[in-house]
């Protein structure tokens, strides 16, 4: 990750207005190949919006996006998918009445031709869905189950599995661990480490600040639609990040609490990941 390398993603001057609300105001984002970027900020800071811009789900009012040095302008999520940008949406974006395999393959279902007519290859879809899930260690009893019958954490795992399984070059995770149990959170963090070692760039949005220090190379802080700060992970600590998020010295008990929590896990993790 030297400065001579071309950025995987370079977003500059991104603005997006919803009615009276300026959701993104000249925001930017830079991501190197294999880098893990932690994106943090208050509720409503614009984290989801800027990642949706990158995934093609939201079209910005202005701004430029470059992928591997080439300017792009996504007019639909299909185009971002074609550029191998995958996203775990905060609302998961699952279809409740479709089965697990169908959700994993939504929009890119394998085809087979019967008398020249393209049809869904359900058998292949379910086989590959089982493989995908077991590769990620996700425990779903049956790929034929409708997603509405799964638990919140299982649903989240499906959304993560979908984004991670199609060889992304950029993986965006918007609060991927919000509904997950302890072991599953660990699994997601491990997944992030694994894919970033393979050269996948990752954007992780989370309010669990201690997680950032376990996997991120860099942290970017947003506030009211703007970038306000950026820190390399080794140059900061959890208290610093909390202050950057709220925009002032913040002496709330929870912050101190989190910080002390982190100190313990932090040193340990540094050693482990080195």
């Amino acid at each position, binding site marked *: 990750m030297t400065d001579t390398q071309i950025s995987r993603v370079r977003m500059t001057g991104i603005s997006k207005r919803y009615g009276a609300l300026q959701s993104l105001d000249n925001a930017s984002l830079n991501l190197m190949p294999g880098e893990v970027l932690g994106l943090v900020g208050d509720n409503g800071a614009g984290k989801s919006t800027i990642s949706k811009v990158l995934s093609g789900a939201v079209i910005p009012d202005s701004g430029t996006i470059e992928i591997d040095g080439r300017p792009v302008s996504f007019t639909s999520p299909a185009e971002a998918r074609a550029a191998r940008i995958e996203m775990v949406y905060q609302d998961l974006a699952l279809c409740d*009445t479709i089965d697990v395999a169908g959700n994993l393959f939504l929009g890119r279902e394998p085809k087979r031709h019967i008398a020249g007519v393209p049809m869904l290859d359900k058998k292949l879809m379910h086989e590959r869905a089982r493989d995908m899930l077991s590769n990620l260690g996700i425990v779903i009893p049956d790929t034929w189950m409708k997603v509405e019958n799964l638990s919140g954490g299982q649903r989240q795992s499906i959304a993560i599995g979908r984004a991670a399984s199609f060889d992304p070059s950029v993986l965006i995770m918007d609060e991927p661990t919000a509904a997950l149990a302890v072991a599953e959170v660990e699994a997601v963090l491990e997944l992030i480490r694994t894919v970033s070692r393979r050269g996948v760039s990752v954007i992780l949005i989370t309010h669990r600040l201690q997680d950032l220090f376990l996997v991120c190379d860099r942290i970017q802080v947003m506030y009211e639609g703007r970038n306000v700060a950026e820190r390399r992970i080794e140059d900061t600590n959890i208290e610093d990040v909390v202050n950057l998020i709220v925009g002032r010295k913040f002496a709330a008990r929870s912050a101190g609490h989190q910080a002390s929590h982190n100190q313990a896990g932090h040193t340990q993790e540094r050693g482990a990941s080195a």
Partner: protein
Amino acid sequence: MSSEPNAYSSHPPRMRETTMLDKVIANGGVMSIALFFVVCCFFFAVTTDAFLTAPNLLNIIRQSAPLLIVAAAMTFVITTGGIDLSVGSVLALTATLSAAALQAGIPWPLAIILMLALGGVVGLIQGYFIAYEKIPAFIVTLAGLSVIRGFALLITGGYSIPIEPTSPFVTIGRAWVLGIPAPALIAIVVLLAAYVVFNETHFGRYVTGVGANAEATRRAGVNTRRVILWVYILSGTAAAAAGVILSARLGSGSSNAGQGFELDVIAAVVLGGTSLFGGRGSLVGTILGALTVAVLANGLILSHLSPFFTPIVTGFIILVAIWLNFRLFKGGAKGR
């Protein structure tokens, strides 16, 4: 979860074998209408002599062909979470125009193609407003219902236009092929095609996806607006086919044909367990629903009851079937 705390180690599947009961409950919508259908048939078979005879049963299928065809298309529309109220009017318009076209000397195969194209274009226009201009389907097709019926009335001046009985056109409605009425044969082909498209193709999958979570389907890279546009093209074309079959069978095109037809179609689809909220549809259910509506109408006439009983009984059956659906099977209804 299992007792193994680490999600990354491999687990044996934790699922028990799917039981019969699971399947019945999962297909609650279809099950309750199948039950109703059997009960209705049994009831009329016992109470009337004429019901369970081959000619009568074939007659039921022949008469219900337009309903079956349009209900198949309507299943797609309703599964996307939409509705098409204009099908009765499109049926009337194409019935009158096909009679008029034949009168004007247009060869019958061309007349049929023109009618189907007209239905498709009507669907395209309505679908455009629904999919691309985001106007609720209910409003667009309610306007369509009025406008299209108006055109049919305007063209005929309210009279019906006769079709030459010697024209090969009428065979579409009256001929028998291999002992089966031609309209029934057309309906069977349409239903089979609809079943395959709905359950086995990408388009069918995206129809369900749009109804379940349109935004999620869009984010998965699917052109959801085009999917929505297409379901209205389908329903318009199906309604046109129904108009052609009806005018061929009756030997005339009447601008008053198909009054309330849209309600029968919607009743058939909803009876079959397709959810008006979208995302859940069943073509098998729709077929059973349409046949139930048809059997009721036929059976009540054979019972020498006043035909005015039909709407009353149909209405009650819809209510009870859907109540069963919600309570007993907990299918069809919204899951969460």
